[in-house]
C-alpha cells in the first residue's frame, strides 16, 4: 500500500517490524524480498513518483575536492532512485576486489566473492539480465564475435550485460511500483524525508526516525530494525547529521563515516591501430545501427598481472575512435537540471531495439581504448557536512573527492600491458594518449566518472577501519543496517548496481534470520 506522507497529521507515529529508508535499487530490492510475509515493512521514500526540482534541490552539495558532477542531477530523489537515469550496465565484482592486496592501501572486505555468489544470481533476476552466466565462452555462442586469444594467465575477457537485455534497463520506479503498492505487508510512504536518526543515550540503538516536511510537520517512525538504503553520499550525510546523542555523528566514534568516497575512473587512455580494417564485435559496444548487444566484453588483467605490476583493478574497452565514451557528460558540461538527463534517457529508452543479438559491427583500423577502473580507497576522499542547510534544515553534504598518483599509474601500466598483449597476438600496436605519458598525478579535462558513488560507510571487520560489519550492521549500533554502495570497501571496475542489489538481498536474508 502507499501513502503520501504529506497527508499525514503532524506528530503521527508510523510503526512496523522493519523500516527501509530509501526506495532505490537497494531499498526496493529488499522490500520486494519481504513481500507477502507476516512482518510489516515500512518503506520510506523522500521524493514522490516524479522527479521534482524541490526534491532534487535537497541533494545540492558543497564541493571542496576535485571537480565533480552536481549531486542534485547525478542522483535522483524519487521512487526508484537513480535507476531512473542509469545506463543499465551490470557485471559482478571479481574475487580480487574482496581480497586484501598489499599493494592497495585499505583494500580487503570481511566477506569474499563466494559469500555473494547466490545473491548475484538472484540480483540478475531482479535486474532482468539476459543470463546469470558471466563466462565469455557462454556468450561466444550467443552474440557476434569471439573473445580474443589472449594469454589466460595474464588476461581475461570480463563480460558486462545490460539490465533488460537489448531493451531499456530495469527502472525500479516504473517497473516495480505496482508490486510494491500491491504487497499487503509493505507500506510505502512517499515524500517522507528522514532528517534525523534518534538513538538511545549511548548511541548504541536507534529508537526512532524523524520524517520532516517543508511545512515543518513531522512524523515519527519506529521499527526494531532500520536499514539505510539511500546512496553513498546521502547515507553518510544522514548519519553525520544525526548527532543529538553522539556529537560526531551516529556510528562515527572512530571517524570513519563519510570516508573513502570512491568513483569509477572512466577515461580514454590509448588507441589501438590495426593494419587492416576489422571489427572486434565481442568488444565493441555499438553496432553499425548504433544499438548495443545484450552482453559485451572488456579486457582485464588477471590477478597475477595486477599483483606483479601493482595495479588497481581495471578493464579496457574498445570504442570507435573519436566517439566520446560517456555521451559528453563530463564534469564541465554535466547538466544541473536532472530533468534534462531524464529526457536524454527517456529518448534513449524509446529508441532501444530489443531484437538483440547478431548485429554487424563497424570495421575500423583505429580503436579508442577507454579504461574503467576502481580508485585506491583514500580516507581523505570523503563526505562531511557543510555549514549550509537544505530546506528541511539538514546540513548539506560537502564532497571532497580525491584521486591519487596510484590511480593514474595503474591506468598507464594496464594500458602498456594491453599494448604488450595485443602486440604478442599480432593484432596491432597501442599508443598511449599524451596525458597518460606524463609521470605525474595530473588528469585531463575529459576525465569522467561513472556517476557511481561508493564507500563512505565501508565494510570492515573492526570499527577502527570501517563503519559496517560483515552483515552490513553499523558497528556499535545494534539495529542499524546499511544497504547501499556506501558499504563497498573497494570499488572494483564493475558498475555497482548488481552488487548493490546482491548485497541488499544478502542483508535481507540476514534480517529474516533475526526477525524470524
Amino acid at each position, binding site marked *: 500500500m502507499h501513502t503520501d506522507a504529506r497527508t499525514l497529521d503532524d506528530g503521527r507515529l508510523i510503526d512496523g517490524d522493519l523500516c527501509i529508508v530509501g526506495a532505490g535499487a537497494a531499498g526496493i530490492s529488499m522490500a520486494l524480498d519481504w513481500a507477502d510475509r507476516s512482518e510489516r515493512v515500512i518503506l520510506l521514500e523522500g521524493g514522490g513518483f516524479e522527479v521534482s526540482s524541490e526534491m532534487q534541490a535537497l541533494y545540492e552539495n558543497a564541493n571542496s575536492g576535485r571537480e565533480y558532477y552536481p549531486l542534485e542531477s547525478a542522483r535522483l530523489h524519487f521512487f526508484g532512485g537513480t535507476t531512473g537515469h542509469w545506463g543499465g550496465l551490470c557485471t559482478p565484482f571479481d574475487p580480487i576486489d574482496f581480497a586484501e592486496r598489499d599493494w592497495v592501501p585499505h583494500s580487503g572486505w570481511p566477506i569474499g566473492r563466494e559469500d555473494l555468489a547466490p545473491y548475484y544470481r538472484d540480483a540478475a533476476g531482479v535486474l532482468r539480465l539476459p543470463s546469470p552466466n558471466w563466462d565469455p565462452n557462454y556468450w561466444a555462442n550467443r552474440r557476434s564475435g569471439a573473445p580474443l586469444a589472449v594469454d589466460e594467465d595474464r588476461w581475461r575477457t570480463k563480460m558486462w550485460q545490460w539490465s533488460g537485455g537489448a531493451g531499456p534497463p530495469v527502472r525500479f520506479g516504473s517497473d516495480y511500483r505496482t508490486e510494491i503498492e500491491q504487497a499487503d505487508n509493505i507500506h510505502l510512504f512517499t515524500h517522507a524525508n528522514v532528517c534525523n536518526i534518534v538513538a538511545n543515550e549511548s548511541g548504541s540503538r536507534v529508537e526512532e526516525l524523524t520524517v520532516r516536511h517543508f511545512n515543518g510537520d513531522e512524523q515519527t517512525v519506529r521499527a526494531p530494525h532500520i536499514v539505510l538504503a539511500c546512496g553513498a553520499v546521502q547515507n553518510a550525510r544522514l548519519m553525520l547529521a544525526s548527532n543529538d546523542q553522539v556529537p560526531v555523528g551516529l556510528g562515527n566514534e572512530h571517524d570513519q563515516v563519510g570516508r573513502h568516497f570512491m568513483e569509477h575512473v572512466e577515461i580514454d587512455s590509448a588507441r589501438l591501430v590495426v593494419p587492416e580494417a576489422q571489427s572486434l564485435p565481442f568488444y565493441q559496444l555499438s553496432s553499425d545501427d548504433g544499438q548495443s548487444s545484450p552482453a559485451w566484453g572488456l579486457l582485464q588483467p588477471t590477478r597475477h598481472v595486477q599483483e606483479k605490476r601493482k595495479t588497481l583493478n581495471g578493464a579496457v574497452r574498445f570504442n570507435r575512435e573519436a566517439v566520446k565514451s560517456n555521451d559528453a557528460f563530463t564534469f564541465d558540461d554535466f547538466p544541473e537540471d536532472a530533468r534534462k538527463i531524464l529526457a536524454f534517457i527517456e529518448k534513449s529508452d524509446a529508441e532501444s531495439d530489443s531484437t538483440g543479438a547478431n548485429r554487424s559491427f563497424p570495421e575500423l583500423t583505429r580503436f579508442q581504448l577507454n579504461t574503467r577502473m576502481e580508485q585506491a580507497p583514500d580516507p581523505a576522499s570523503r563526505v562531511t557536512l557543510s555549514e549550509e542547510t537544505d530546506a528541511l534544515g539538514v546540513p548539506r553534504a560537502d564532497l571532497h573527492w580525491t584521486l591519487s598518483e596510484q590511480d593514474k599509474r595503474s591506468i598507464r601500466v594496464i594500458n*602498456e600491458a594491453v*599494448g604488450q598483449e595485443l602486440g604478442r597476438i599480432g593484432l596491432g*600496436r*597501442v*599508443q598511449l594518449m599524451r596525458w597518460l605519458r606524463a609521470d605525474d598525478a595530473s588528469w585531463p579535462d575529459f576525465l569522467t566518472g561513472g556517476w557511481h558513488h561508493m564507500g563512505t560507510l565501508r565494510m570492515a571487520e573492526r570499527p577502527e577501519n570501517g563503519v559496517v560489519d560483515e552483515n552490513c550492521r553499523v558497528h556499535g549500533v545494534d539495529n542499524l543496517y546499511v544497504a547501499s554502495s556506501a558499504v563497498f570497501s573497494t570499488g572494483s571496475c564493475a558498475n555497482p548496481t548488481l552488487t548493490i542489489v546482491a548485497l541488499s538481498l544478502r542483508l535481507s536474508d540476514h534480517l529474516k534470520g533475526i526477525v524470524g
Partner: protein
Amino acid sequence: MDRRQFLELGGTSALALPLAGSIAWIEPTDEQRPLARPDMLTRVGDHGLTRRLGRRYRRVFPEENDTATLTGILRRSAAGEEGPDLSTKLTARVRRDFAEGRTLNLDGWVLARTEARQCGLFSVLHS
C-alpha cells in the same frame, strides 16, 4: 580524426616539407632491408612514423646510434628464431619480445625492443 590527431598529422606534414629535400635516403643492402623494416609498424603507419620512432630510439639509446651496432644486434636477435627468411624470424622475435616483456614506450607507442631497433636502423639509413 580528433583534434589531437589532426594537429599531430598537421604538425608532421608541416615539419616534413622543409626537411623533404634534406632526407638522405641510403639504399639499404638486401640484408638490411628486412632488418630496417618493422613489419607491423609499416603496416599500421608510414615511413614518417617509422623514422620518427627510430630517431627517438637512438636518442634514448645513444650507444646503439649507428648502422653497424643496430645491424649486429638485429642479426643476432633473428638468429635465435625459426623461419624461412630473415623477415619471418624478426617477426617471431618481435612477438617473443612482447611475450617476455622486452618492450619500451616511445612517444606513447608500446613497442617490442626489436621493432624499435628496426625503426632505429630505418632512421639511420633514411636520415
